[in-house]
């Protein structure tokens, strides 16, 4: 491809990069940020207490998730694990609601504590690790274990040398990925954490930016520490190599895996419909949810379009970093930076769409780019020789191969956008609500049944988009 064409394709990717870099620079040099005050906050024991608490609870949740995941895998022997794949992409708010309802049902004294956060994290982590590790075991195949048994290894030793040791690099990558989710978990901690001092770094950044009492210097100090941890984590993750595209939905789970996953999605859809019917009479005016629903749909569609635009631009132009830059930052840090830069220039809706694109384009890139890289160059050449132009050769030969993965990941991106809440809360400032932010606000006012109705509607929307992605794939 000629340099001029490549540059033309590079424009959206470069614009996105410039937007992020300018946002971060503008945050660092903004009037609200005084380096001296940032330094003071960095020396504040309260900040380090938050850091310590975040790390302690995250690592404990990680360890427990890993132990429980193996217990489940050993007990179920891989049967039915594919259903977990869908549950592992549920938003934090759904886990928070589940744990909240269970704790209330068993008569827990106070469901709002870091203990509740730990329970919800372990639940989410166990499902995620189970799903990821079982795929790794499936990839190993049975032959290695058969060889071990014929060499004299008993069932336990065969298990250790085959399933456990064979998936070790994958386990490392999955654990780091899960740790990333814990460290950037927002709505779950907001709902279950019980407020300061029981809050993690991500929530503390948001607390520092609350309307009417914002302390940008404190938010920057917290963000710097969080960014440092997350960048270290990202480096480790990159060194370990990729786990299976995280949070499940990728290409090639086979027909049986696809059926089980569809079964999981169907169960959730039925559960949500039941929940909506059950909660309907208790919420009063259900029309209050219509506007957030339309905003969620419009936002999801915008994010899908922008994700496609930026990802294709960065792939074709070779500036791949532009499409994964969001995976190097914490969601709130990025929101904060872009808010400080363009909060008053661009409409809140566009800003939220751009930020969500930055967060979710990496999912698209990490799943679709390897598919494109694996493109059979020779087959494309054959199509060219037979008379197809570049674009026609792509659509005739390459597209049928990658269509499944692309449609699935678009369903995933829509589902993630429908359930993302932190950037909406920070940017919208009450101008508009999505189903997720509407539910979050209801949670914060302890209107649990109304919030649950919103969560059910949001889950239904994301389950339907994932289901459609699976069916069309």
């Amino acid at each position: 491809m000629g340099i001029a064409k490549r540059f033309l394709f590079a424009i959206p990717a470069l614009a996105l990069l410039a937007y992020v870099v300018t946002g971060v620079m503008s945050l660092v040099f903004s009037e609200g940020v005084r380096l001296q005050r940032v330094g003071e906050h960095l020396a504040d024991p309260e900040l380090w207490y938050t850091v310590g608490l975040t790390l302690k609870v995250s690592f404990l949740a990680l360890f427990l998730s890993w132990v429980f995941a193996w217990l489940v895998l050993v007990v179920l022997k891989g049967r039915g694990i594919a259903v977990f794949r869908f549950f592992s992409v549920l938003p934090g708010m759904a886990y928070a609601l589940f744990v909240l309802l269970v704790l209330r049902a068993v008569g827990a004294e106070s469901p709002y504590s870091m203990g509740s956060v730990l329970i919800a994290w372990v639940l989410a982590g166990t499902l995620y690790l189970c799903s990821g590790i079982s795929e790794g075991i499936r990839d190993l195949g049975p032959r290695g274990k058969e060889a071990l048994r014929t060499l004299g290894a008993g069932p336990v030793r065969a298990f250790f040398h085959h399933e456990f040791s064979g998936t070790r690099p994958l386990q490392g990558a999955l654990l780091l990925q899960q740790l990333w989710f814990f460290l950037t978990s927002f709505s779950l901690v907001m709902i279950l954490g019980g407020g300061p001092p029981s809050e993690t770094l991500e929530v503390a950044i948001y607390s520092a930016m609350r309307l009417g009492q914002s302390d940008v210097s404190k938010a920057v100090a917290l963000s710097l520490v969080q960014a440092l941890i997350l960048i270290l984590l990202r480096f480790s993750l990159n060194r370990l190599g990729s786990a299976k595209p995280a949070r499940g939905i990728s290409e090639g789970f086979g027909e049986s895996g696809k059926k089980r996953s569809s079964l999981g999605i169907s169960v959730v859809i039925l559960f949500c419909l039941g929940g909506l019917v059950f909660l309907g009479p208790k919420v009063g005016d259900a029309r209050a949810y219509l506007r957030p629903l339309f905003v969620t749909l419009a936002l999801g569609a915008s994010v899908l379009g922008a994700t496609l635009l930026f990802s294709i631009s960065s792939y074709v132009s070779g500036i791949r970093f532009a499409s994964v830059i969001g995976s190097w930052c914490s969601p709130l840090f990025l929101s904060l930076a872009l808010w400080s830069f363009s909060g008053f220039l661009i409409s809140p809706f566009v800003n939220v769409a751009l930020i969500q694109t930055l967060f979710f384009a990496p999912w698209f890139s990490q799943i679709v780019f390897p598919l494109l890289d694996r493109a059979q160059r020779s087959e494309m050449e054959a199509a060219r020789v037979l008379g197809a132009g570049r674009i026609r050769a792509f659509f005739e030969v390459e597209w049928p191969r990658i269509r499944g993965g692309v449609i699935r990941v678009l369903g995933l991106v829509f589902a993630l956008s429908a359930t993302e809440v932190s950037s909406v809360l920070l940017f919208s400032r009450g101008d508009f609500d999505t189903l997720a932010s509407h539910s979050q606000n209801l949670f914060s006012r302890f209107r649990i049944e109304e919030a649950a109705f919103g969560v059910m509607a949001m889950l239904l929307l994301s389950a339907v988009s994932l289901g459609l992605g699976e069916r069309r794939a």
Partner: protein
Amino acid sequence: MRDLEIRNFKVLLPGFSVSCDDLRVCPGEWLMVRAPSGYGKSTLFRGILGLESTEGEVILGGARMTEVPVHRRNFGVVFQEQLLFPHLNALENALFGIRLRRSVTEKDRRRAQDAFAELDLSHRMDAPLHELSGGERQRIALIRALLFDPDLLLIDEPFRGMDDALISKSRGLLERHLSTKSVPVIWITHQNEFEPLRAKVLIGGELNHGRRHFQYHPGQSQAD
């Protein structure tokens, strides 16, 4: 008549180049390219197709092919590894070249069915690619190369994986096609599979500091 002329032709790759003597191939005439494995036959083949950077000229019927984009050259090609498309079935693969040029007509389908029948593939027309053997794929690749009436045929070891009876049938199909649509043929091989009546031969010479050169050997052609 659409003669093929090759002048000062050289394929340029990092570290080495592959060139050949100037020559002219008339319609219905075969250019056999022979050399041991690894000499650069396929590189020369890819260069003529326009898939590698080249110097010199490939002229077909007076038109400089080196200035025509790959997909507009109208060459019929049988690749060594067939390069059929896994998302299409056998018949769709065979008709793919036509589909890229115009819509497929009933006449095209009948021609394809006849070719399938001639090569004992009638029962495999709707088969997905992964169910076909190597020999079956090879025959489908040959049908694909012939169906859209190309101006030049380039064939890279097409008889691999076929038994003698099938080789004979495939040759029959090819020769019948050439008797009605007379075009030059470039045939890449590393052995003396067969000697067509009207053939010219290019043979790989000595290796020389990364420069590989195919020499024209008129003496080895039965036509000469």
